[in-house]
């Protein structure tokens, strides 16, 4: 995901918390459902060929229903779509309006590379 794309998603969340999620979500204060969702999204992004029914069971176990699971799949896959359009065509959103904490996460790396580092 290009950083401008990511930063646009911060909404009303605390800027430093969003920065933690962007840099390494495992260090952020997230609840069990959020962690399961991000774990699933990470697998879908980096190792889709290894996914199995067990991955959906992991989401069910923390309380997601079938429609919510479909929404998570669609959203994670959609972000893989949008970020590639942005990266391949050099499209980005201006950094104006984003907090200092968030911008400092990304000057030398994208969210994608940050996640790659986090799972190594």
């Amino acid at each position, binding site marked *: 995901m290009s950083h401008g794309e990511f930063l646009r998603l911060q909404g009303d969340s605390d800027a430093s918390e969003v920065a933690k999620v962007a840099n390494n979500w495992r260090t952020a204060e997230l609840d069990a459902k959020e962690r399961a969702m991000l774990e699933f999204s990470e697998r879908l992004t980096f190792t889709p060929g290894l996914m199995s029914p067990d991955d959906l069971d992991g989401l069910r176990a923390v309380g997601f229903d079938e429609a919510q699971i479909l929404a998570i799949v669609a959203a*994670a896959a959609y972000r893989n779509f949008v*970020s590639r359009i942005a990266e*391949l065509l050099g499209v980005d959103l201006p950094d104006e309006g984003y907090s200092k904490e968030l911008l400092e996460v990304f000057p030398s790396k994208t969210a994608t590379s940050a996640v790659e580092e986090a799972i190594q």
Partner: protein
Amino acid sequence: MSWLKGVSGDGYADAFSLSPGAEEADAAMREQVRLGLGERDYALMSLVIAGLLGCPRFMDSVRGLLPAVEAVKVIEDWREAGLSSKEQAAMVYVEKGTLRPHEAGPSDVEVLRAAGFNDTDILSLATAIAYQNHAMRVAAALGVEPL
């Protein structure tokens, strides 16, 4: 059968039955992607992405668009599959867009232009790369075949 419970049918579109709006949007994007590329380029790209994502089983989704022997060669190693120089330039872009999109830059677009692609072609390529990365992840996560 989709890994989602309560979904009848085992197709890609069936998996979206819990969210018809999402299926419509997905189908519209797929149609645009296929209009923007020839059948051969669509098949080559789909095979390469399926291989890179560790989903070689998805080669069935483009069965009939390429000779079977060539399809197998492409999914195993597109660099040794006898593709034209223009096709190889496109597959380099496909590979980077799939595995290392954050490394893409203006020089990648220049390489495509030098190989004979115009800017509309390049937009079609980028959109198709992005769409197939989306669709194959949906299919892989839900236990269905991409279209």
